[in-house]
């Protein structure tokens, strides 16, 4: 989400306008989506930019579990968001700057409300590096160390955002997801690269992710990437995971 509009990125860049978030949430309600994650990508460039008023409106139309990320700096931000009826928050940059935020939040709201995001890309040597500030700064920890650290501090879930695969629809990086899933005991949500339902099956069954997230897959249709908000039926999803 950016400036109250829904956008889809490629490699965390090249934003394409998708539509009105409220309308899209209503469609996803109708389609019976399992969970929704709303990531605001312009908020972290300025301080105090969380649009609580707009979030309140969105939450009131969202009848499934909802997570919000973007621009969260302090404990009071999390409290305000939870009081709007949003049950989970997603954090990344703030955790690098404020060591205590995660553990204090876990004490105050419980780990089930906290998703720590790992924004990962490859460096010029082809090694995975964790980043903050929408991929613009390098974290001081390796992805696995950071994952373990988040777990120890009280994160309830880990979100792997694969910047190199974001928007490509070429499939998840199974190696990356598996490394982190094996390094931790908390659920790992894989994100970045989903282009088909088969990709989702792979990341769950082969890479051992607990959940699969997707953007492009659920907002684009066909080769030409026409905008069409879509979601597989429960029967299709159940069949996908049948042995």
């Amino acid at each position, binding site marked *: 989400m950016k400036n109250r509009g829904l956008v889809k990125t490629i490699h965390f860049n090249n934003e394409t306008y998708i539509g009105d978030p409220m309308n899209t949430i209503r469609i996803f309600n109708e389609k019976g989506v*399992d969970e929704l994650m709303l990531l605001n990508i312009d908020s972290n460039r300025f301080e105090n930019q969380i649009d609580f008023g707009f979030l309140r409106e969105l939450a*009131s139309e969202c*009848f499934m579990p909802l997570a919000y990320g973007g621009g969260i700096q302090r404990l009071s931000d999390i409290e305000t968001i939870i009081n*709007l009826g949003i*049950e989970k928050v997603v954090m990344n940059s703030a955790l690098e700057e404020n060591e205590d935020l995660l553990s204090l939040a876990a004490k105050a709201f*419980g780990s089930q409300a906290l998703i720590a995001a790992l924004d990962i890309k490859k460096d010029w040597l082809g090694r995975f590096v964790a980043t903050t500030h929408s991929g613009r700064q390098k974290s001081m920890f390796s992805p696995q160390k950071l994952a373990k650290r988040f777990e120890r501090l009280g994160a*309830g*879930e880990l979100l792997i955002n694969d910047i190199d695969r974001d928007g490509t629809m070429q499939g998840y990086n199974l190696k990356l997801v598996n490394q982190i899933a094996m390094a931790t005991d908390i*659920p790992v949500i894989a994100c970045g690269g989903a282009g088909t339902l088969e990709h989702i099956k792979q990341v769950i069954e082969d890479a051992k992710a607990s959940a699969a997230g997707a953007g492009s897959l659920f907002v684009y249709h066909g080769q030409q990437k026409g905008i069409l908000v879509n979601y597989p039926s429960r029967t299709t999803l159940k069949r996908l995971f049948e042995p």
Partner: protein
Amino acid sequence: MKPRITIVDYRIGNLGSIENMLKKLELNYCLGQTPGDIKKSEILILPGVGAFDQGIMNLHKFGLIDPLNEQILHKKTPILGLCLGMHLMTKGSEEGEKRGLGWFDTKAVRFQTDEKKRLKVPHMGWNDVNIREYDHLFRQGEDEHCYYFVHTYYVPIFNEALVLGTTWYGIEFASVIYKDNIFGVQFHPEKSHHFGMRLFRNFCQWACRA
């Protein structure tokens, strides 16, 4: 005239999601914050997210325990407990030391982490409810019963006659319990889109008939 639902507000967790869904369903509701509010209630919802002891202590603090007992056990007002709300209806929980409301003769226990199966605790996500009895919260002919769960403690199958639905998560546990006018569900209907809306609607219909 539509009956009014009273959501017991004992200042634990947030009620935003429940209010949002009841508004969407165009159901008439208010918050029950005082003993007087509870005494006037026609249908009750006992929500809850958080720790067991804190929940019971808050019910004490706002003087809601006696009016709830009076309303539920004597006046037989229909009540639906959600998640922690369901646990509070039992005699206690491994999560805390306080005594529960004791409407159900059982206690909530903790999921055992099973290394081999790698079941993650809390049990978080969508899961199926196997319905044992219809007519109250569920109706014959409904296609699927799938709900959103977030919990570390569960109510065991303590009494076959009082369990309306069960769910499998490494072990089969009671995800829906009932006794006369009292219902408890382990999941969050307010976050289970059309499945949850259907359950609230069914509960209100049943409550009006009762």
